């Protein structure tokens, strides 16, 4: 039997099970904590830092912190709203994101968070980093300009023997997402589609078919990111 626990987020009484990740426990209580790298039931990466909250006075990533009895969590405070907006802005200056021309526009979590936090002009100087595009594998078009290093593909997409098809290369500012040429050649259409679907931005694209759903009729065109979680519990 899992143990039920009580905690609060911005004063709201919440319930969850002991050990459940805070970000998931919050969602179950209708509280949206923004994420880019997190996916439920996947080993947390803790890399995008969007879900940073204050727990009992300490800054923690809600995607790596287990919910505990009596936690007092600060989520939508002016401090964290600004930090999250800053992180979105930072991702926009670090990569090269041109939303109007992107196949993922309207389905992109980064773009949706830009709207949510009403980003106008990034406060940081653009890096204009040169990033190589890789179109050499049969099924996947890797548009590195848009990669935000969430590691979702690294964690999810494996071949039959459990070997990684995607992995990091380099470190710091030379970091890039790498695709295994040999193993990528064995990917099925379903795997390629899954890789594209879990990519929160437009970095991993499945080749050949695009823009099936017109822009304007896509996921975030009609409802802001996080509203599904918040509306479920009103």
């Amino acid at each position, binding site marked *: 039997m899992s143990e039920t626990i009580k905690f609060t987020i911005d004063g709201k009484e919440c319930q969850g099970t002991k050990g459940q990740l805070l970000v998931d426990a919050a969602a179950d209580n209708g509280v949206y904590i923004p994420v880019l790298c997190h996916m439920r039931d996947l080993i947390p990466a803790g890399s995008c*830092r969007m879900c940073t909250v204050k727990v009992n006075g300490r800054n923690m990533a809600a995607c790596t912190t287990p919910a505990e009895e009596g936690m007092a969590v600060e989520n939508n405070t002016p401090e964290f709203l600004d*930090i999250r907006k800053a992180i979105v802005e930072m991702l926009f200056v670090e990569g090269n994101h041109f939303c109007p021309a992107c196949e993922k526009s309207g389905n992109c979590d980064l773009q949706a968070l830009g709207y949510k936090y009403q980003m106008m002009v990034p406060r940081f100087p653009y*890096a204009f980093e040169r990033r190589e595009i890789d179109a050499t594998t049969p099924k996947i078009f890797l548009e590195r300009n848009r990669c935000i290093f969430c590691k979702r593909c690294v964690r999810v997409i494996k071949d039959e023997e459990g070997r990684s098809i995607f*992995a990091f290369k380099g*470190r*710091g*500012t030379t970091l890039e997402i*790498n695709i295994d040429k040999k193993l990528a050649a064995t990917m099925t259409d379903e795997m390629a589609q899954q890789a594209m679907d879990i990519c929160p931005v437009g970095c991993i694209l499945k080749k050949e078919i695009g823009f099936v759903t017109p822009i304007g009729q896509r996921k975030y065109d009609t409802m802001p990111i996080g509203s599904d979680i918040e509306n479920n519990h009103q």
Partner: protein
Amino acid sequence: MKEKIISIVEAHGSDASRLMDILLNVQSTFGHVSAEAVSLLATMLRISEVDVVQTLSFYHFFSTTAVGKYAVYMNNSVVSCMMGMKDVVDEFEKQTGVKFGNTTADGKIGLYYTACIGMNDQEPAALINGIVFNELNRQKVRDIVAGMKVGIPVQDMIAHYGDGNNANPLMKSMVHNNIRKTGAVVLSDYTLGIGIAKALTSDAKSVIKEMKESNLRGRGGAGFPTGMKWDFCSRESGVHYIICNADEGEPGTFKDRVLLTERAYMLFEGMTIGGFAIGAAEGILYLRHEYTYMKAYLENVLKDMRIKNFLGNNILGRGYNFDIRIQMGAGAYVCGEESALIESAEGKRGEPRNRPPFPVQKGYKGKPTVVNNVETFCSATRIIEKGAAWYNTLGTSESAGTKLLSISGDCKFPGVYEIEWGMSINAMLEMVGAENVQAVQVAGPSGICLPPNQFHRKIALEDLPTGGSMIVIGQQRDILKDVVLNFMEFFADESCGSCVTCRSFNMILRNAIEKVVAGHAIKKDVENMQAWSEILRKTTRCGLGQTSSNPISTTIKNFPELYDARVKDVDYQSDFDMEKSVKASCEVVGRSSEVHELAKVNIN
């Protein structure tokens, strides 16, 4: 090539978790790790090529292209620059005819920069094929390059041996210990085996109790209570591991180098005591790549301890089995972070793990693991020998015992000092013969840049905590250019890149301080730097990002006048840098990129 690689992989049990050693072996055998080698390794280890590349591309001393028959890695950290690196670099480039970052056309000599190599007390220093060349000057460089040109092996270029074990036939190193002050705990006389015999005749619980009562706190810098760490770990079930963090990478620290050279037995004894306390049968010494020159000596110490039955099966007839292996690093500052170190020891990129779980719960290979610093283990040996009560008579009420300081920079007597916690910075400066001091960089780049009006403060965990790096900065130095910019370049290079904020902010902050140094910044830029440092500190996963903005934030706080002198109080100033923008194209046509004063006026 194929046969050789197959034998390397098989020598490591075809085990992917030994990828670090396998790559190190391939690198040293062939001078690089080729695409062919990557493919072969992936097949043999049953992992994907991108996973081999993931590890290969993370570490500084791995290379996918040939590094040269003689690979020169010049330390370009702050103190090396202070001590005249520029001349040494100039002479290397002049003698070889290539710029740093390149290899000579015949593939013979490669010149590269590297971060602090733990020789701050004898700079400028470089590693050449793993051998330390210290106190370099133009004449020495001329001799070295002349030797390279006629093919003299690097080990034959060693002019003289350093003191103590540096002269040991297995070490044969020019490095000096520079032990300036010995204290009661680690650098006083030591006899092998007293601590371990005491521990083994008592029981694990009593050892942990003694350690807790000693109030010893981790000597790597974070200051976590050692006894508590051992206690937490010992409560977990199953296989346990004990790891010594000898990845001394904080620029300016070199005290572990001296302990590894002169107190290796004491260190391994401490690991054995720790292993006994937590119930581990296996220990790992994670040794930074820069200290490869000590490896043969350290292996021999382990061998000697096995012969004397201080390691191996049924140690001292007390039924305890324990042994230690050495894991080499490959050049990554972030691997000094304990969970990144564990990842690295498992053959992966050195990326810090999320917590929880903590290493004491799930560490090396997912098993409960204690990671302690070299000095911590040496202290543990002495504590078990002489008792917690004795240990508590040293130091301050909140910081028991002694601390090794690595002091370098603008002072007469750079070296290693074992002091009791509680010494003031003023007293320290007097001890090292430093005059006209502008600042002291306490605890390395991730610490504080301390101004003279705070020199009364005490070196102690409750006031000025430190892992031991102390860089004395004289009046003649340009702190923002010579120190802060250098530190920020270091952090931008060394971030593992996994956290958005650490990867990006360190780059953004490095560019921002560069703008200040170039004289292009306005007041608002400095305010931004402060605000952005704060976001970085609040949102990153590990200690690197939480402290990497300190060079900027502590100088803005403690030396505001340095910024005021360089920034303009206007709303807007172009940060376009003509010289920088045309540098590459000017080099192509062989012209100086220097923009004349008149042209500058016109641009502005």
